[in-house]
C-alpha cells in the first residue's frame, strides 16, 4: 500500500469516526441544552454545573474509563468493542457531548429570553417551545456542533487508549501523527498534521457557506 492510499484511508477513518460521534453527540446535546434553557426544574442548576464540569474532563481519563468498561473483564467486554472505531466513537461522544450541550444551552438561553413572552402567550407546549428554539437558533447550534467537531477531530489521548492505533483498523490522523513523531519521521508527521488542519478548515468553510447561502437566499 502506498503512502497516498494509506493517508487517504487514515483521513477517511478520522472523518468517519468524528462525524459519527458528532452526529450522535449532537442528537443528545442539542435537545438537552435546549430543554435546560426552556424548562425550570429543581435540579436544573445542578445539571448545568455537572455539564460544565464534564466539559473540562481530561480526555485521557475518559479514554481510561471507556477502556475499563469495554475491556474483556469489564461490564461490556462481551461486545468486543475495544480497539475498534466504535470504541473511539464512544469516547469522542463522551468528550464532546458536554461541550456541545453547554454552548447550545448558552445560546438557546439567549433566544429563549427573546421568545419567552410570545411563546408563553401563545400557550405553546414544552415540545413546541423546544422545537421552535432549535429551528430558529439552528445557526447558533451549528456553531456549537462545530466546536464539538474541532474538539473531536483533534483529540488524541482517549482514542489512542481505546482504539489502540492499530494499522488499518483504528489508526486515525492524530494517532498516526503521534506515532510518526515518536518514530522520528517528522516530515510525515507534519504532512499528516497539515491534512488534519485542512480537514478542519474545509468542514468549517463548508458549514459557513451553507449557512451563508441560506441567509442570502431566503432571509
Amino acid at each position: 500500500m502506498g503512502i497516498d492510499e494509506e493517508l487517504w484511508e487514515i483521513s477517511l477513518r478520522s472523518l468517519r469516526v468524528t462525524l459519527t460521534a458528532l452526529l450522535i453527540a449532537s442528537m443528545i446535546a442539542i435537545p438537552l441544552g435546549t430543554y435546560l434553557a426552556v424548562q425550570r426544574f429543581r435540579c436544573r442548576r445542578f445539571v448545568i454545573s455537572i455539564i460544565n464540569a464534564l466539559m473540562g474532563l481530561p480526555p485521557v481519563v475518559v479514554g481510561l474509563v471507556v477502556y475499563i468498561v469495554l475491556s474483556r473483564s469489564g461490564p461490556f467486554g462481551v461486545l468486543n468493542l475495544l480497539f475498534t472505531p466504535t470504541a473511539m466513537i464512544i469516547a469522542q461522544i463522551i468528550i464532546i457531548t458536554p461541550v456541545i450541550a453547554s454552548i447550545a444551552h448558552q445560546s438557546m438561553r439567549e433566544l429563549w429570553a427573546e421568545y419567552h413572552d410570545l411563546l408563553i402567550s401563545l400557550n405553546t407546549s414544552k415540545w413546541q417551545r423546544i422545537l421552535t428554539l432549535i429551528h430558529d437558533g439552528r445557526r447558533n447550534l451549528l456553531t456549537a456542533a462545530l466546536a464539538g467537531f474541532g474538539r473531536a477531530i483533534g483529540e488524541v489521548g482517549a482514542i489512542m487508549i481505546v482504539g489502540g492505533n492499530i494499522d488499518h483498523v483504528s489508526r486515525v490522523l492524530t494517532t498516526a501523527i503521534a506515532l510518526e513523531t515518536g518514530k522520528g519521521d517528522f516530515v510525515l508527521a507534519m504532512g499528516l498534521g497539515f491534512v488534519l488542519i485542512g480537514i478542519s478548515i474545509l468542514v468549517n468553510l463548508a458549514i459557513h457557506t451553507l449557512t451563508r447561502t441560506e441567509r442570502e437566499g431566503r432571509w
Partner: protein
Amino acid sequence: MTAAFPLILSGVQVRRQGKTVLGPVDLTLCANGTTIIVGPNGSGKTTLLRVMHGIERIRAGDVVWENDDPAKHAFVFQTPIMLRRSVAENLAYPLMMLKTPKDQIDMAVDHWLERIGLESSRGTQATRLSGGERQKLAIARALIRKPDVLFLDEPSANLDGHATREIEELLHEVANAGTRLVMATHDMGQARRLANDVVFLLNGRVHEYGPAEPLFATPSTLELMAFLRGDIVS
C-alpha cells in the same frame, strides 16, 4: 358579546424583587367595548395587562374569567417580538402551533398579509422590518387565531401619525367585529378615540376607573386632571 367576560380582578398583587409593582387591584371589566389603560411610566400598565392575560405570577388575589380559554386570548407586546423567520412564517406560527391544516393557514396568511399591506415582504426576514411594520405584523399575528380578547401594550408607541392611524383603523374594525380590546397607551388622543372605558393607574393602583366620556370630561381626582393636562404626576 364575548363569553370570556366579565373579568374580575380582586385583591391582585404583583411583587418583583421585594417591591409591590402592582396592587392591590380590584377591577371588573364588563363584557363589551374597548378598555384603555393609561398612567405614567412605571405605573403598572404592562404588569396589569400581563396579569389579565395570565402570564404574570401574582402574589395575592384572584383573576376570574367568566369563561377562560387561553387559546382565545392574544397579546401584543410593548416591544414586538419577531420570530427569526420570514414575515409569512411569523403570521403562520400561531396557527401552526394549533395544528391548523396547511391550506387554511395559507389562506389566513394571505388574507392578513394583504390586510396589513405587507404582501411584497412576505419572504422578508421579520427582524428586518421597520418599527411600524413590525407592530402591524405583531397585531396581525395576534389576530390570526381570531381571539375573543386582544391585549395590546402601547401598540403605537414610536409610530408616526400615519402608521398610528392605520393601526387604529384596524383595531376599530376588529372591535366592531366583536373582539374585546384591552389596551395600554400613553397617547391621550388615542385613548379618547378608542376608549369605551378607562383605567387610570397610578403607582400600581387603579386610581380611577369608569366610562371614558365622563372620566375625560370631569376627572374626579386631581391626579387624573393633572395627567390629562400633561403635567407630571407622581
